[in-house]
């Protein structure tokens, strides 16, 4: 659809009067329509495709790393000889391992999952679900995508600069991340990239909150919002208020690296026997506090929208209202709030006193309760349902036990005493991968299969989808389950080669199993990639509401035109009115007027 954006500028408030929008406009150029578009749907798709590429890239890094873990210092088949400058002798040097590890974490979290959940699904689905014609600030929306894109390019470029990409983990703990200054540019690029990504997220979150507050359709009260919108709403507040401290920290670290300041550098740092020229007086733990002040809320940014998507899909495919919707909403708000006061549970081993440890352990235990409540509500929804096992539902269902494993294993980490043994071991890696990979990644797959027909007007192939699901489900567990045992055995994370340790050597078999799991998981994505691209052009055509769902996005055409709805929607009821007695169809869309009972 055509549209004009001549009057905008400045602060990104967009405002334009359209006479008879819809027909009779000249077409925009290709560039304005698909590249620098301000339509939330195009931007959502841009985010989605970019994020999928990054997910794929981040995963590829890890598959290469898993070779080094399984067969330390053996030449990497094929890849090793393809990129001799990266892998001298075909094998992976420890600095390359560290660089890949840091970039895997960064890319997966900041360039893959968050842009996918918020940038893609949030952008595409949320305005549709609230019956809005677009985001509140369309130009700002476009800007946040392009700022994200710049951040991504900066991160990728850092692989090719002097000294290679950042090597201090995704956490970039100082002083390690600072003392590499003279011969490593990657860390500086990492910081600059982060500033881009943070800015992008901030712009996005402002837009999301404003849209949800201002642009809800008539009759759509806050407690008639689909759970997914609530999840996006809370997530946006987390991004809005937690990211700036990391931006501050990033600026301070940049100063330490570029201007030689000592924000994170204590006095008398001696590297390889050489006194460093930093004046000192700084505190390495300051970085950790500021980093985790963001990064803990960030992990909830990784999970809340995922929970929201799963909730949507479960409601639609159980043909039932979500059980305890209000409780879930209160829980997610509470979860968001609490996530700001648990950050130091990542720092129990830094030499923390009793009061502080007790405080953060307590808040950590408290924050696990709302998760339990939300998960329980979703499972109870299954009771008395009529469950359709289509592909999105399979992924959504698998999310529940997988997230439960990830969440439950967070508990031993949240108690300082058990964390003594488990901190920085593979147990932590296992814990969070269960929440982010079979958790969030599965939710993303579920979301893709679920909303694909809305975005393209075509269905993805069911059989290929099932193959994708079963294989992914098996191998993701093969990949991550061994990590808990490795962790209990005491194997530290970020080890380029664990076989030097007796305890590491004893569980090397598990490591190999995990690697094979990861590679097979990689193979299992082939049906998905084929399905995704082929269905885009050749999938079965569907009407606007193929899943017979109730929420507003399904009342718009598939794909929705510019402006989204044929007529401005008005909402008459709650989001999940399935199986209402006295109604012939087993669902009662939000926008349909009619008998209330």
């Amino acid at each position, binding site marked *: 659809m055509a*549209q004009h954006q001549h*009057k905008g*500028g*400045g*602060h*990104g*408030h*967009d*405002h*334009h*009067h*359209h*006479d*008879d*929008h819809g027909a009779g406009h000249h077409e925009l150029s290709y560039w304005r329509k698909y590249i620098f578009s301000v339509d939330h749907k195009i931007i959502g798709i841009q985010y989605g495709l970019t994020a999928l590429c990054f997910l794929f890239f981040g995963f590829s890094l890890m598959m290469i790393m898993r070779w080094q873990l399984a067969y330390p210092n053996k030449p990497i088949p094929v890849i090793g000889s393809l990129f001799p400058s990266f892998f001298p002798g075909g094998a992976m040097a420890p600095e390359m391992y560290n660089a890949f590890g840091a970039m895997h974490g960064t890319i997966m979290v900041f360039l893959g999952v968050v842009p996918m959940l918020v940038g893609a699904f949030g952008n595409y689905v949320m305005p549709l679900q609230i019956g809005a*014609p*677009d985001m*509140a*600030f*369309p130009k*700002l929306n476009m800007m946040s995508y392009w700022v994200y894109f710049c951040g991504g390019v900066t991160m990728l470029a850092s692989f090719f600069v002097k000294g290679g990409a950042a090597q201090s983990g995704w956490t970039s703990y100082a002083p390690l991340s600072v003392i590499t200054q003279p011969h490593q540019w990657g860390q500086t690029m990492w910081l600059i990239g982060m500033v881009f990504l943070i800015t992008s997220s*901030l712009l996005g*979150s*402002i*837009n999301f*909150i*404003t849209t949800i*507050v*201002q*642009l809800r359709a008539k009759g759509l009260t806050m407690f008639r919002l689909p759970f997914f919108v609530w999840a996006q709403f809370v997530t946006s507040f987390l991004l*809005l*208020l*937690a*990211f*700036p*401290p990391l*931006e*501050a*920290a990033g*600026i*301070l670290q940049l*100063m330490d690296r570029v*201007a*030689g*300041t*000592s*924000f994170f550098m204590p*006095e008398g740092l001696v590297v390889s026997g050489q006194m460093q020229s*930093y*004046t*000192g*007086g*700084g*505190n390495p733990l*300051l970085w950790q506090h*500021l980093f985790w*002040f963001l990064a803990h809320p960030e992990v909830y940014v990784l999970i809340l929208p995922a929970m929201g998507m799963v909730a949507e899909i479960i409601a639609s495919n159980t043909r039932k209202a979500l059980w305890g919707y209000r409780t879930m909403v209160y829980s997610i708000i509470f979860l968001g709030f609490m996530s700001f006061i648990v950050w130091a549970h990542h720092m129990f081993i830094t030499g923390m006193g009793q009061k502080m440890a007790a405080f953060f352990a307590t808040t950590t235990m408290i924050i696990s309760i709302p998760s339990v409540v939300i998960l329980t509500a979703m499972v109870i929804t299954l009771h008395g349902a009529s469950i359709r096992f289509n592909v999105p539902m399979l992924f959504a269902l698998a999310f529940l036990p997988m997230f439960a494993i990830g969440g439950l294993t967070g508990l031993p980490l949240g108690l300082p005493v058990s964390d003594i043994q488990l901190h920085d071991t593979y147990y932590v890696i296992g814990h969070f991968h269960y929440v982010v990979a079979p958790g969030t990644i599965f939710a993303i797959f579920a979301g893709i299969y679920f909303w694909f027909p809305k975005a393209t007007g075509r269905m993805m192939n069911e059989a290929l989808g099932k193959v994708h699901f079963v294989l992914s489900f098996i191998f993701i567990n093969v990949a991550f389950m061994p990590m808990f045992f490795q962790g209990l055995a005491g194997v530290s994370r970020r080890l380029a080669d664990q076989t030097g340790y007796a305890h590491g050597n004893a569980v090397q078999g598990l490591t190999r199993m995990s690697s094979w799991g990861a590679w097979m998981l990689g193979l299992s994505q082939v049906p998905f990639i084929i399905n995704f691209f082929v269905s885009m052009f050749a999938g079965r055509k569907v009407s606007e509401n193929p899943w017979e769902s109730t929420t507003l996005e399904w009342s718009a055409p598939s794909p929705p035109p510019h*402006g989204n709805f044929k007529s401005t929607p008005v909402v008459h009821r709650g989001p999940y009115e399935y199986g209402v007695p006295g109604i012939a169809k087993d669902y009662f869309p939000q926008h349909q007027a009619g008998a209330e009972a």
Partner: protein
Amino acid sequence: MSTAVLPYTVEPHPITRLYSGKLGIWLFLASEVMLFGALFSSYVLLRVGAPVAGPAAWPAHAETGLSWKIGGFNTLVLIISSVTMVMAWAALKTHNIGRAKAYLATTVFLALVFIVVKLTLEYIPKIQAGHTPSHNNFFALYFTLTGLHALHIIGGIIVITYFIGPGSALWKTDPEYFTNRVECTGLYWHFVDLVWIFLFPVLYLT
């Protein structure tokens, strides 16, 4: 049918009583509070935790060589610029675009004075005297905090200049919308002033 594609860009939402831009700018300011909050909290930590002696010690006030006169002058400049900013908005409210532009121009002028004073009387002499950011954490913080603040000022200058120049075309087609935009810019500008109100005593006086 002549409908705005997006409602509430000009007229306030009947329930929230806000036009979208205003909520947006306040959300942005909330994130700015967290940004400067984190830096402020770093300041406290580094100051309280500084060694008692040696090169990394927190310098005594006299040693910093920061002049309260220059700082105080700049404080007044910023406060006045805040007044002119809000007067510009009030002028728009009384439909006097000429007066509004004059006030906006004064604001930009004052902002430029601030930057020029900062650069020529503070940054350059400090650096020439060897008080670079790497000298000690006081100067590191001084340059980081005031530098970031100065970047905000420069951003403000650009936006306000835009509204005096090309941006003011909007006044002819949709005066109320233009007024709203100036109000939002004003909110941002006052916030920048507000940050300085804290930076001044923290850096120049104690």
